[in-house]
């Protein structure tokens, strides 16, 4: 029997403004058999998404098919008339995009969008489609399947939307699923739940799939075959276990090397004590902060952070981890003064800072700098790099003319960018380069504390690893203290001296990196660590058997005032205690604290 999908010498070019063609995909061939999952893996720019979309006979605007064929059961989908393509899309080949939040139409109900394709193609009538959707919601373990269809996308969580997109793709029982980085934007705890749901549904429905990702650990869990791509060329193609265990190609090995090892103690570079002083560089005490209108007792309508203490020693790096919605970014905003805290103090060098940025002195502003997550939106697209870097130099250091130019050159050198970038605009740079400029902009102020909010989350594995190396070097060279916010435990483990684990706006554990990442754990820390995918086949199945996974994966984080916020997800929760009384702070020694009702001995189990 021939393959379900045959990609045969496919070439795709981008048409540039001057009409010339730039090759994006350079003659790639592979097959997808029925019921088989093929992973396309590579960095951004490797053409993996472009190849995956060709299975639907579609290219992004600006791209053109220039050669080769993509045959679905022997029929070339590229040369198909557009009406036939329309019939095929959603019906025989279905697509799952990276960001479900952007892919669901905010104005239409979930039910309409999930069933739309199946009904339009005449696969089902509306009622049958609704039933099919409901049973898919069941299979994907979505809450309240009977009423889910009547809700709107903004009313469900990100992880749920991602699974709903799977339901949307599967509704008309397609032969082939195209999954484009479907778990990249998710928290680790949500990711394994979604992965598990995808895997079981794909198996149950017997459909084939193309799985696009840059994350090898994820691939190891789900793919039968792996296609490794680099710059539009196929590098290696083989059975998953073979590619992962005995990569034959250089690039694959590089890709494997950039995979961050699972978080464990003993990985972080020990920071030298040369920059130390008695007073912490930055300290927050008793912080209470949130959003919305202030109520009469001075607390905000929605309280996000509660009783947060932490100190950043000079030259040290404190990693802040937790799932989305736990208040990580809010904490950075409080430190920088972008969001004034309702209660509590922010101390810089032991001196209290005004809560609101507007009331801080220029000197204080200079010492705390923010590096935002999305370099794309943080850099003004209408300013050249030298203007972007020059502004803080003028404002804080009052540099101009030659002195300013020299400093800009130094800054570019510090972040490993060539000098000629000074005259370029952000859009001429790649994602990793933009993030370096973003970093250089913060460094231009010669700060004492850098607040890095998810600075490598949007970057590829290899690019991200390079940025981390750069940060480590900058830390050695400048003695700057870092607050490093990330949902990626592996990165934090390799970079931070101390770790603060936040859950629902409260600190649940903090201490030195090695202590936090080794037992005894807070149950939540344990859940986070056990959810990070490992680069080996079969990890997913094993992990799903553990009690942490069964108890607590992918629940919505609830902000509560009473008791322990982790109560409803905790495998060790004590009914009547954990839901009523705030957990005590247990001192494990050497500054390592765990906020839990359970004792030290009970954590180790």
């Amino acid at each position, binding site marked *: 029997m021939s393959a379900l999908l045959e990609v045969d010498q496919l070439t795709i070019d981008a048409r540039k403004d001057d009409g010339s063609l730039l090759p994006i995909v350079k003659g790639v061939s592979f097959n997808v058999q029925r019921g088989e999952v093929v992973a396309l893996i590579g960095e951004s720019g490797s053409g993996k998404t472009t190849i995956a979309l060709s299975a639907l006979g579609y290219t992004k605007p600006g791209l053109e098919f220039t050669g080769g064929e993509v045959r679905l059961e022997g029929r070339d989908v590229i040369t198909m008339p557009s009406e036939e393509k329309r019939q095929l*899309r959603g019906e025989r080949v279905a697509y799952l995009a990276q960001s479900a939040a952007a*892919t*669901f*139409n905010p104005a239409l109900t979930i039910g309409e969008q999930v069933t739309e394709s199946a009904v339009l193609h005449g696969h089902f009538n509306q009622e049958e489609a609704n039933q099919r959707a409901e049973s898919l919601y069941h299979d994907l373990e979505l809450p309240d399947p009977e009423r889910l269809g009547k809700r709107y996308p*903004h009313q469900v969580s990100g992880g749920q939307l991602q699974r709903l997109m799977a339901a949307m793709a599967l509704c008309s029982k397609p032969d082939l699923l195209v999954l484009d980085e479907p778990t990249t934007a998710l928290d680790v705890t949500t990711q394994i739940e979604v992965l598990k749901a995808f895997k079981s549904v794909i198996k149950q429905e017997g459909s084939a799939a193309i799985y696009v990702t840059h994350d090898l650990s994820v691939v190891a869990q789900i793919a039968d075959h792996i296609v490794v791509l680099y710059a539009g060329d196929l590098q290696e193609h083989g059975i998953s276990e073979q590619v992962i265990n005995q990569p034959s190609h250089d690039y694959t090995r590089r890709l494997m090397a950039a995979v961050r090892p699972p978080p464990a103690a003993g990985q972080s570079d020990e920071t030298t004590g040369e920059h130390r002083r008695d007073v912490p560089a930055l300290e927050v005490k008793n912080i209470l902060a949130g959003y919305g209108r202030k109520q009469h007792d001075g607390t905000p309508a929605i309280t996000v952070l509660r009783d947060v203490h932490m100190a950043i020693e000079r030259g040290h790096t404190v990693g802040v981890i937790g799932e989305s919605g736990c208040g990580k970014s809010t904490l950075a905003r409080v430190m920088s003064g972008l969001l004034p805290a309702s209660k509590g103090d922010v101390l810089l060098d032991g001196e209290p800072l005004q809560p609101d940025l507007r009331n801080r002195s220029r000197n204080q502003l200079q010492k705390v700098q923010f590096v935002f997550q999305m370099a794309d939106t943080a850099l003004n697209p209408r300013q050249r790099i030298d203007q972007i870097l020059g502004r803080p130099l003028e404002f804080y250091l009052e540099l101009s003319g030659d002195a300013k130019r020299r400093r800009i050159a130094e800054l570019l050198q510090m972040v490993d960018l060539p000098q000629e970038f000074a005259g370029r605009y952000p859009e001429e740079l790649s994602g990793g380069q933009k993030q370096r400029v973003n970093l250089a902009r913060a460094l231009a102020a010669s700060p004492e504390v850098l607040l890095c909010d998810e600075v490598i989350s949007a970057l590829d594995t290899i690019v991200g690893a390079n940025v981390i190396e750069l940060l480590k070097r900058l830390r050695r060279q400048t003695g700057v203290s870092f607050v490093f916010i990330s949902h990626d435990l592996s990165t934090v483990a390799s970079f931070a001296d101390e770790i603060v684990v936040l859950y629902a706006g409260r600190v649940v554990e903090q201490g030195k990196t090695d202590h936090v990442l080794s037992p005894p754990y807070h149950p939540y820390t344990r859940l986070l660590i056990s959810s990070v995918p490992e680069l080996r086949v079969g990890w997913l199945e094993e992990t799903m058997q553990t009690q942490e996974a069964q108890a607590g994966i992918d629940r919505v984080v609830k902000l509560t005032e009473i008791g322990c916020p982790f109560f409803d997800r905790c495998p060790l929760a004590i009914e009547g205690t954990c839901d009523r009384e705030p957990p005590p702070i247990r001192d494990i020694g050497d500054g390592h604290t765990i906020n839990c009702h359970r004792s030290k001995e009970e954590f180790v189990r």
Partner: protein
Amino acid sequence: MLQAILHRTGVGVATLIVVSVLIFVGTSVLPGDVAQIILGQMATPESLAALRTKLGIDQPAYIRYFMWLSDLMSGDLGVSKAGSGIGTIGTPISEMLYPRLMNTLRMAGVVSLVAIPLSLSLGLLAAMYPGTRLDRIVTFSTLSLISVPEFLVATFLVLILAVYLGWLPAIAYMSGNETGWQLIKALAMPTLTLVIVASSQIMRMTRATVLNVMSSPYIEMAILKGVPRKRIILRHALFNAIGPIVNVIALNLAYLVSGVVIVETIFAYPGLAKLMIDGVQTRDMPLVQACAMIFCATYIVLIFIADMATILSNPRLRHPK
């Protein structure tokens, strides 16, 4: 949701009150008063004072304001204070206003009946086939028509349709007893002018908003789900584009009520805007105030409706978490 509506209503009422103060102050600081105009340059101070007392304009400003406001609330727009000869009290403003208001509303109604469906469908068509000849013709012609002042459009129409072709009368004066066909002929040219002016804007806004929505990921998703083009536009894109479109429609409707004085003058059409200009010329402040209040109220009501449509078309606002 209900809270949002109440909030908007409150804001609307507050705006109206602020506007009424501004109108009152604005008309009060204008030099000269009605008594002076009625009695002429040669009037003695005594007779001026007597007339001022009679007209109630010798009271302090805030008292006059509240008297005016309470009259306004009870539907009494006051009495015209000019053009009625020495010593007599003029016609009630409502009597002067009513036929003019009807004329204006009739014109606005006819124009919107033509302009809104026309511009929406042309805008959508242009957005459905961007870069095609149809799109370029629509974009180019609307841009040209927006840039040409309305009096020029009107003058060209008169030149072509009335002078050269002789199909339509050059003016649209209403005597009040026109029959159907005459009425249509009389209204045709001002309507056409206003349709051109109003539709260009709505069309461009529709095209721009829908095109913007068309580049969002959920539209690409709809394409990849095999949704037909027509359904993508009408079901997926239009719903997300309603807010800006409704707002530009509301602004254009408000313009049709209050801003068409030039067109009314060119065609000698007896509408409300022209009445207000006449009021300004004769320093008939109560008339100016009444017209200004009607115009402002129209704006506020239309914007309120547009806001409501925006809220209703957005499930995030309709069903907060």
